[in-house]
């Protein structure tokens, strides 16, 4: 049978604050275990949590950037469960009155975009980190680091609107880029500042009701999210094809074996017994402050993409790629403002530059070629000093050594020969040296043009201006 895949994502992301959500401990990554702790985040008796204003502001920003409605009154609840990484025995979260609801994210796809609904965004505190004793030679113990306890998070819950693993990945990329643009989060998966759970179910194509879903937990890299969902979809397809029922459960993805497995035991029907957190007072985002926050949000990816198409006259696709991250968009705009042609710069960035960066698994922030250097090179192409082919060599060298284009051109004598007389002289010699081919060409074997172009490029060591070479060859052979 043909099934439709139905996916909803729950994304936890760390907000960019200096201190924790309810106490004045640092959020700095990489400190000694338990250095960032205090009586509040350790859950000592009698302490009082107080909400970090910056965390609230960033949560509101996230809501505004994703078109959520801000709830006029929002509050915190206790989510009760026992686990050693949770010193209080409950997590402070938002249950019945989250900060924002009913948002959406548009996924651009071949010109027509898909709108993915957001059910809610709520604030909560992160839990600590458990290290299993095996790693420390104590297999009968576990070790707890509370540095992450109380790190401010928002959880962004999508509607079950995603229809394929690729779409889930696109959604994540989009969400990440929006949160980065809006300054809410770094979304650095390596540092644990973005985590994702996925709810997955299948239903026969055309059926309205949802099928039974499983929850895939702790997908901790963008690559894994798509792969894990793919593998879970395959597993559910096999079960349904055999006429069996999918069991509603929580599963984990094993990247090494590329399979999902049931978490079993611990997941005995959750009963978190939420109730209003009496230690924290309700939150009301006043209209004036809301306006202030709204004004402070910079241009977001959708707006930037539209502006790029309008102002730089580049295709929609180019604009989409270039605005995929704020850093890349800034890089592009700087190159253009420093003199690179808008479309040429776009071609180089989307082609050579991103290819090199992908190969090195580097991001644009650590690109060895600065926007000014790229602009200089693009100008050399545009004024005819370098042919496209030569420019590729120059670019590789720039990327490898960090040297400016002009220096590489000078060092390697790479100036394009655009002197028509010089090219004519070369071609005369080639024609004289190849009477057989010349005769065949003139007799109608036009494919031999490539041979003559090749000979000329060889004679000029690749430096002859290809356009002039073509013109002169047609003239002389014609």
């Amino acid at each position, binding site marked *: 049978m043909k099934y439709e895949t139905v996916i909803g994502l729950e994304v936890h992301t760390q907000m960019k604050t200096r201190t924790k959500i309810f106490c004045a401990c640092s959020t700095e990554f990489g400190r000694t275990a338990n250095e960032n702790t205090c009586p509040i985040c350790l859950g000592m008796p009698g302490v009082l949590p107080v909400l*970090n204003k910056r965390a609230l502001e960033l949560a509101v920003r996230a809501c505004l950037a994703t078109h959520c409605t801000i709830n006029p009154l929002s509050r915190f609840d206790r989510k009760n469960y026992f686990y050693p990484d949770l010193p209080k025995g409950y997590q402070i979260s938002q249950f019945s009155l989250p900060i924002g609801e009913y948002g959406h994210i548009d996924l651009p796809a071949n010109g027509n975009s898909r709108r993915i609904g957001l059910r809610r965004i709520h604030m909560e505190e992160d839990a600590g980190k458990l290290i299993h004793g095996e790693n420390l030679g104590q297999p009968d113990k*576990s070790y707890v680091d509370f540095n992450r306890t109380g790190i401010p998070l928002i959880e962004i819950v999508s509607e079950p609107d995603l229809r394929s693993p690729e779409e889930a990945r696109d959604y994540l990329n989009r969400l990440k880029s929006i949160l980065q643009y809006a300054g809410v989060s770094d979304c650095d998966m390596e540092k644990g500042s973005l985590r994702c759970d996925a709810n997955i179910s299948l239903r026969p194509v055309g059926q309205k009701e949802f099928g039974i879903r499983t929850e895939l937990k702790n997908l901790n890299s963008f690559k894994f999210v798509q792969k894990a969902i793919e593998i879970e979809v395959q597993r559910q397809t096999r079960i349904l094809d055999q006429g069996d029922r999918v069991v509603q459960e929580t599963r984990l993805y094993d990247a090494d074996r590329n399979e999902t497995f049931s978490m079993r035991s611990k997941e005995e029907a959750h009963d978190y017994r939420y109730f209003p957190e009496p230690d924290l007072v309700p939150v009301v985002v006043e209209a004036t402050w809301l306006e202030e926050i709204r004004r402070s949000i910079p241009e977001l990816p959708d707006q930037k993409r539209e502006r790029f198409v309008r102002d730089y006259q580049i295709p929609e696709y180019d604009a989409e790629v270039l605005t995929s991250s704020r850093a890349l968009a800034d890089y592009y705009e700087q190159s253009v403002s420093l003199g690179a042609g808008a479309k040429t710069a776009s071609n180089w960035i989307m082609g050579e530059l991103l290819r090199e960066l992908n190969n090195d698994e580097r991001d644009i922030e650590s690109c060895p070629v600065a926007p000014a250097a790229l602009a200089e090179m693009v100008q050399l192409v545009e004024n005819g000093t370098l042919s496209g082919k030569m420019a590729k060599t120059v670019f590789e060298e720039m990327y490898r050594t960090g040297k400016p284009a002009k220096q590489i051109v000078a060092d390697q004598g790479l100036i394009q020969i655009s002197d028509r007389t010089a090219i004519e002289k070369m071609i005369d010699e080639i024609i004289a040296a190849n009477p057989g081919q010349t005769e065949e060409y003139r007799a109608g074997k036009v494919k031999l043009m490539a041979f003559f172009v090749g000979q000329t490029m060889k004679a000029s060591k690749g430096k002859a201006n290809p356009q002039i070479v073509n013109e002169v060859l047609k003239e002389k052979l014609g």
Partner: protein
Amino acid sequence: MSGFDIDNVALLARLRLEGAERERLGKDLETIIRYIDQLDQLDTARVEPTSHVIPIQNVLREDEETRPFASSDYLNMAPSEKRNHYEVPKII
């Protein structure tokens, strides 16, 4: 609260209740719940849900770091610690 189950409550609270103790606490809790259940007889249709007992809102702190004690102060209070970590029984 319907279908009150003392064993489930004990499980969620990580308490082991046995014999007479289980019996006694079960009865006590049931009485407490029946008492609280009287609230259901009130018509609350026009009452705003209470978010907090004190009518205040927006108590916020600035995003500034302070460090009242050294982390070793807390670690030293733990029953067991090792290499700056709190040591606990093995978690599966």
